[in-house]
């Protein structure tokens, strides 16, 4: 569907919402075509193509809000949904903090390839499977999902805001484990977004290192005992750890509820000097990213923690108004943890006793940051060296305290098209086994 048609649908949606009595209204219209190739248990299994559309609308009437999402774009469906959306707002609760985005300069954005090459894409995935088998023969792909996704969205509101963004790129995600006779490892996963079909997919990001470690995990033994030491989080799980901490301490609910230990820490030191965490949806290393926010503002990259100091909360405009704080200029998941000065090999050498954690299996931490999780795909570090793979190992600590106990950040980073992450060593983490 052409961009002009999407804009017409967006304009029609706003007109319907106004017609039914909205004071303020916004909508997002999105079309996407996805070609997906699946591999299951090491064999190609499915070719899937989907054609999706959606219209999401929000209205504010008498300081009350309603939200509706449908996947139809014909006028009759939009009209009916708009009527229901306003009706929902009418029965909702008065909240003076509701708003829609203010007008900025409208803009059309585009990113990615002009069109898909389905044959070449399939052959790249086949090449990937062959490369994997040759280079890491004990690794078995439990499931691989590769897709080419082309999507165009238009955001518009009754303040005159209108942004559009077309993205078109490839993605590949693999869930795998290693097997050798009766020996088997935990599963792990890796993924990458990309636009270049000429490069070998296996050479992208840190996949080779991940697969190499996976084969070594075949000799994992249950960890016995307990110690408090250094945990090195690999990029494959660092992103989750940092994102969880950021959401737990700076997100909407934690700030509105004042349950965050960082509620009054803006401008203050909350982490080691070495730590800088930024949201970077507009960056050459990021595939796709974000150009306008879910609320309809033009996206800007944002530092959350800079040299250990809390620079921004990650608040929506609603939560910002509710708490009297500032809206974050992006809530994208594209994140960079700034690289340090220490080569990864040297980072390990400094550790007397610790653990290299490649994946964590656990639930949400408590609001104060207390957490415990099983360290998956992980290795014991002793006297500066990775000595053995371990299983049935639990790690626990407090996220807020961990961020203040960073001893080292690697010079090397891993890029997966979404995040840029180094290896980070945290002190004071409790490691326990049977």
């Amino acid at each position, binding site marked *: 569907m052409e961009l002009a048609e999407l804009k017409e649908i967006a304009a029609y949606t706003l007109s319907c919402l106004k017609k039914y009595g909205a004071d303020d209204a916004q909508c997002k219209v999105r079309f996407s075509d996805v070609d997906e*190739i699946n591999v*299951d*248990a*090491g*064999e*190609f*299994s*499915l*070719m*899937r*193509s*989907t*054609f*999706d*559309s*959606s219209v999401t609308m929000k209205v504010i009437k008498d300081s009350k*809000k*309603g*939200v*509706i*999402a*449908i*996947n*139809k774009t014909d006028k009759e469906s939009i009209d009916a949904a708009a009527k229901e959306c306003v009706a*929902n707002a009418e*029965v*909702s*609760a008065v*909240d003076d903090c509701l708003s829609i985005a203010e007008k900025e300069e409208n803009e059309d954005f585009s990113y990615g390839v002009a069109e898909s090459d*389905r044959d070449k894409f399939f052959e790249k995935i*086949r090449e990937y499977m062959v490369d994997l088998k040759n280079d890491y023969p004990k690794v*078995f792909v*439990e*499931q691989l*999902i590769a897709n080419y996704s082309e999507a165009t969205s238009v955001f518009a509101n009754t303040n005159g805001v209108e942004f559009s963004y077309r993205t078109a790129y490839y993605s590949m995600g693999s869930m795998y*484990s290693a*097997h050798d006779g009766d020996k*088997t490892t*935990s*599963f792990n996963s890796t993924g990458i977004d990309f636009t270049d079909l000429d490069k070998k997919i296996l050479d992208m990001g840190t996949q080779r290192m991940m697969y190499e470690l996976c084969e070594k995990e075949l000799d994992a033994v249950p960890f016995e005992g*307990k110690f408090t030491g250094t945990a090195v989080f690999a990029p494959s799980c660092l992103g989750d750890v940092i994102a969880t901490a950021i959401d737990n301490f700076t997100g909407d609910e934690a700030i*509105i*509820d004042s*349950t965050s230990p960082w509620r009054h820490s803006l401008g203050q030191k909350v982490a080691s000097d070495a730590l800088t965490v930024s949201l970077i949806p507009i960056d050459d290393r990021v595939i796709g990213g974000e150009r306008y926010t879910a609320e309809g503002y033009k996206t800007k990259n944002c530092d959350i923690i800079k040299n250990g100091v809390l620079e921004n909360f990650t608040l929506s405009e609603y939560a910002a108004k*509710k708490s009297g704080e500032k809206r974050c200029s992006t809530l994208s998941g594209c994140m960079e943890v700034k690289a340090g000065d220490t080569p990864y090999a040297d980072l390990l050498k400094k550790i007397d006793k610790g653990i290299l954690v490649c994946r964590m*299996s*656990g*639930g*949400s931490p*408590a*609001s*104060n940051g*207390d957490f*415990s*999780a*099983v360290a998956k795909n992980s290795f014991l570090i002793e006297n500066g060296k990775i000595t053995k793979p371990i299983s*049935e190992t*639990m790690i*626990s600590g407090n996220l807020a305290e961990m961020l203040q106990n960073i001893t080292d950040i690697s010079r090397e980073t891993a890029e997966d098209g979404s995040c840029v992450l180094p290896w980070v060593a945290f002190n004071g983490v409790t490691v*326990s086994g049977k």
Partner: protein
Amino acid sequence: MLHDKIKDLVNGVPEYTELRAQVNTNYGISIVSGNLVGNSRATSSGVSARVYKNGVYGFSSMGDDSEESAKNVLRAAKENALFLDGKVKKGKPGLYESPIADFTERHDFIDVPQKTILDYARETDDYIQNKYPDLASRSVMIRCDSIERLLHVSTGSFAHTISPRACLYVSMTAEATDGTNVELFDVMECGRGYFTELFHDPSELYEKIDTLHEKLMAKRDGVFSEAGVCDCIIDSSIAGMIAHEAVGHTVEADLVMAGSVAASRLGQQVASDKITIIDFAHTAFGKPVPLPVYVDDEGTPCEDAVLIENGILTGYMNNKESAVHFGMKPCGNARAYEFSDEPLIRMRNTAILPGKDKLEDMIASIDNGYYLTRTQNGQADTTGEFMFGITMGYEIKNGKLGRAIRDTTISGVAFEMLKTVDMLSDEISWASSGYCGKKQPMPVSDGGPAVKCKINIGGR
């Protein structure tokens, strides 16, 4: 919904073909500390087709309900199957020939007004605020989902089903004397049906809300558990989650083929002989299960899948393709979440069967251990290694319940932990408020009795 005329598009086609029209609706209300932060309704509908060819599938979907779209997705799915077959030439045999289903479920769609749901949530929140004003925070959340689908398979199978579900959750946070916040979350009510069929007056929840608050106060004054392997009684919600996460996933045939721990254990003793685990289709113990499934998305009439019987691993959950691979019978485990999703092997209502013991006798049998009553999350590996967060529990000292404990975790390896089970309570209870995640979400339920076992518990 598309009318029966789409049947003519599928009947008699030479390739194995599924054609499905489906509508998913989701309503949500979320009130956090009195603020209405979520008030949304979403509907998605469309058609999809899947075609099998020599060991590969082609699939296509469109978010449009017209007959023309049905023809388009059939054409695209066939092209996709031919594309992939042409590339990989697996040359595998045809699919398992399940009995022909012809099933229509009687449950009229009820379009519950948002105001009805919202008023109920508000009144519930008002009760909590007025009765417990000292809470640090509180939230009331309502989630309603409904899936209606019309399925035609080239084998002649037909199903028209509708599966509504409504759930209300409450979370409370209190400040403890050490300055930390202590939280507790629970499902107040959840089941199959539209909101107005399950929820009538908020006062019907007050007793459960009071109990939740009482537990929160006990937890606020609670102690940290002592780390290590010890005797524990895990309550039904945790037992059900172990049945689902730590056992169920490892015996899904696609994960068995991918190398799960169950791949080499068929016919072996993997649990105490007291343990029997069944993935129920629609009826258990003479009653409908929480989320009954009568015909799956491959058109297979659903039956119970016995996974472990008296401690022996007896079977896997299959789709038509894996059933041929393993020489087993598919029991109707192929399920798709939205119209745009292909069927995957999924659980339905997975439970550990109850035993003959009384809970009080089980508690009395432990000198030093824990009674763990609530989990909020859990994850398991294809190796059977699992980890669950425990949000409520009590010490057991000298056969009696003691102090409440703060949040902790339990972990273990399913087939090792289940061998330590020596008592099972004589009652089963079910949890049906969750989604299982496996490429697509899926409403599932799980259940079990209270289970006495040895398990590794975390501590500070």
